[in-house]
């Protein structure tokens, strides 16, 4: 335990306060509700706690124990050692929101650099200091589109190719009032054209994903034109790593880019903490949620950084604020900033290309197994869907018996897709792992 008080400290302090005991300080609490017995495990020393947590952690099978081909919004990528070295600096991780810029320039400048990296990757013009995760950033993007159009438009068009959990989160955020979401039940095999008929003068936001949940990569240039003709906002949920290799959402004409920053140096960690990316155009800077860092100078003209545009935020605007967010994902944004800086222009392209190459090799090999075929011939990045000769859930069970965590069973979210397995392949899946998967797929589907 971490309070440092000696008995004599306690007595001296109580004397200064004028209290006879610590218990006396709690007399404002109703007596019958004071000092309840808590039924909790006994005290563990650090040594015992370390052992206990080690034991619990060994109840999990990790990426090292079993080859995994799971993606669906969380990807296993290599994280250079220097990233965690920087994250573990107490000056970064034991600080809080940089309210006092004179003693927070480290955090502030790192966020400013994060914003710059995100803008460069996404092709946008403004980025916030981060959001909770991809799903909440997507919900915030829908909300932002409504606010930009002053609440006068009452629907969003959301592609069924947006991550199912992101769509669920969007519903949780906006379903409580008269706002309609259309498009989620469209034919999954259709491209972005299928959305066009739904886009009208009542549409505030159109949201698509890039690559979409099924891994498909579309050129959204024409969609952007249609959306803008209708006076609506185009929000693209993007994988930032794909944007190192493929055209950025900004090049298509996106107004808002949101997405999951986990592929940029953040461990899988069972789903969190991750990093929500939220970026937009300069003209919408006053509508973006969350903290933003801007450049300025001190009285002597030295360049420095501060939190800015805070009049958008809850602590100033209270019930008039467009979002209630205050804490963001500071340390995760730092991880991404260091990761991007370390890999740099060439490294990021290199790793994105490795993903592309490995995934395409895997897709080709799998589609040559009798009974398996590619579900779509659309371009993809590091994830793709295969139609299997049996339910994907059953296939995954059989693979697990062989020591492989297979892909994502699309039947879980999309009725009628029970026989479809979504496979993610990153630079961490070596050729021999891929060959092993292909061999076992062939074996278990033959039996």
């Amino acid at each position, binding site marked *: 335990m971490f309070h440092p*008080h000696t008995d004599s400290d306690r007595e001296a302090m109580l004397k200064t*306060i004028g209290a006879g005991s610590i218990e006396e300080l709690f007399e*404002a609490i*109703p007596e019958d*509700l*004071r*000092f309840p017995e*808590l*039924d*909790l495990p006994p005290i563990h020393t650090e040594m015992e*706690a370390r052992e206990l*947590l080690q034991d619990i952690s060994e*109840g*999990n099978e990790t990426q*090292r124990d079993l080859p995994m081909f*799971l993606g669906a919004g969380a990807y296993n990528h290599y994280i*250079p050692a220097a990233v965690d070295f*920087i994250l573990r600096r107490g000056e970064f*991780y*034991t*600080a*809080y*929101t*940089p*309210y006092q*810029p*004179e003693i927070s320039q*480290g*955090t502030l*400048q790192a966020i400013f650099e994060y914003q*710059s990296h995100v803008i*460069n990757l996404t092709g946008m013009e*403004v980025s916030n200091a981060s959001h909770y*995760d991809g799903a*909440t950033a997507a919900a915030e993007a829908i909300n932002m589109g409504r606010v930009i159009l002053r609440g006068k438009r009452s629907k969003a068009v959301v592609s069924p190719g947006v991550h199912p959990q992101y769509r669920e989160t969007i519903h949780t955020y906006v379903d409580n009032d008269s706002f309609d979401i259309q498009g989620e039940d469209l034919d999954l095999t259709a491209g972005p054209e299928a959305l066009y008929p739904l886009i009208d003068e009542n549409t505030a936001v159109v949201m698509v994903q890039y690559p979409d949940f099924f891994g498909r990569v579309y*050129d959204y240039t024409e969609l952007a034109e249609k959306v803008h003709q209708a006076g609506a906002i185009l929000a693209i949920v993007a994988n930032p790593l794909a944007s190192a290799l493929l055209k950025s959402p900004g090049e298509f004409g996106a107004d808002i880019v949101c997405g999951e920053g986990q592929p940029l140096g953040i461990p*899988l*960690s*069972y789903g*969190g*903490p991750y990093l929500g990316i939220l970026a937009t155009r300069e003209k919408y800077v006053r509508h973006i949620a969350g903290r933003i860092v*801007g*450049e300025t100078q*001190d*009285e002597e003209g*030295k360049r420095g950084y501060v939190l800015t545009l805070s009049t958008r935020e*809850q602590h100033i605007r*209270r019930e008039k604020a*467009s979002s*209630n967010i205050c*804490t963001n994902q*500071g*340390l995760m944004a*730092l991880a991404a900033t260091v990761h991007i*800086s*370390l890999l*740099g222009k060439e490294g990021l392209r290199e790793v994105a290309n490795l993903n592309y190459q490995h995934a*395409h090799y895997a897709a080709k090999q799998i589609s040559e197994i009798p009974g398996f075929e590619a579900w779509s011939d659309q371009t993809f990045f590091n994830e793709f869907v295969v139609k299997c000769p049996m339910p994907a859930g059953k296939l995954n069970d059989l693979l*697990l018996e062989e020591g492989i965590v297979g892909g994502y069973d699309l039947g879980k979210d999309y009725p009628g897709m029970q026989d479809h397995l979504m496979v993610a392949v990153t630079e961490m899946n070596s*050729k021999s792992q891929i060959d092993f998967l292909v061999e076992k797929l062939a074996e278990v589907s033959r039996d």
Partner: protein
Amino acid sequence: MINLEPLIYDKTSPGRRGVRFPESAVPHTDLPADLVRQDLPLPELSELDVVRHFTKLSQLNHGVDIGFYPLGSCTMKYNPKINEETARLAGFAGIHPLQPVETAQGALHLMYLMQEFLKEIGGFAGVTLQPAAGAHGELTGVLIIKKYHDFNGDTQRNKILVPDSAHGTNPATSAMSGFKVVQIKSDERGNVDLEALKAECDDTLAGFMLTNPNTLGLFEENVCEVSEIVHQAGGLMYGDGANMNALLGISKPGDLGVDILHYNLHKTFSTPHGGGGPGSGPVGVVEKLVDFLPGPLVAVQDQGGEDVPPYYNFVTPEHTIGRMKAFHGQFGVIVRAFTYIMMHGAQGLREVSEYAVLNANYLMALVKDAYRLPYDRVCMHEFVVEGRWPEIEGVHALDISKRLMDFGFHPPTNYFPLIVREALMIEPTETETKETLDEFAKALLQIAEEAKSNPDVLHQAPHVTPIGRLDEVKAARNLVLCCGVPWLDND
């Protein structure tokens, strides 16, 4: 004095490399020519360049590991290093959120126990670990209020009451969820004014958002009456758990009539603040609200038996408000908080709150003759003083805050709560020694003296930081929000 550091975009050199990846070992596939990106304007540096850059940046920060950080309402306690070790264990950091639950039983076991611990600590029947931060937990709670009333056909309940001392997130969250927000004033002891509360309790009341101890650091003496009045009017009591560091083993919010409460694992349970996140904001609820929690929750599917551990699975409550984010919450943060609870047990947690309250009252006693206390009562884990003296013009809470930096301290929260003029909100936490508190009090007393004798030294503060007071008006007027972006020409 430490020098400032150039931007990473100013240190780039074309062709320089940091990390390299292996050559592709698979047959080559051509890239889609029409979709390939032409320009990727990111910096190019060596690994050492990058490490030095961020190490230097870190040195421009103040953190709990460097010195006292009495930022009120934020509970800047020591972040035990063991937490960082446990969260990084391969069996936690290297698992995929969607891998089969039979391969993640360790994670589910830990999450299940964490739900149980938080239920016990707060006096609740159900807990969701999903919310990503305090404000996100608040949103969860307010959406539960909405869903509960809608489910009962009480759709006219569209009003949320918040005390005037509330955190800004309370009104923002309520408004975000479509509620009308009405503020309730505080009485002369800093408690909720019961008459003002009664006047607003009608059949449109959806709920009341109470922070207890409140943002003045005072235990809400009328809490049971407030709960009763709200409940009688058909409303629900929401508890903002930002200040739970005063109540561990001291009192259970559920016993005090709170129906919904969010915890801030990054405040109360020692997980690092990370320069502004990640936080974690689990939400506890009473029995009648369990079915409305966001899913998935972890439940025991099979009790197991002798030598057979229980088998856990995810379940979604029947009338759930829906998912609040992707996957299962800020798992890495939950591992840290779990470690902390394991190291404390019931006795240790009670001591956390006891010593947090002792430290706050001690510090308050040392400075209250020099700084006006708006409410002279025993405080809980924090207290608020006025950062001004009526007889001295032109000295503000901001000046005191900046001057504190010269002594190596992080300033308290200033200008909050809004109901205290020039507020300085001071939360020492239990992990600070008496010596540190003495030093801090000494600095505050010296500053009070300087305010009279030499106010310029306050106005010109800070004197020893790498940079002076920054021009925030300029930052907001001439927006420069990034660097090195070719299409913005902002260099």
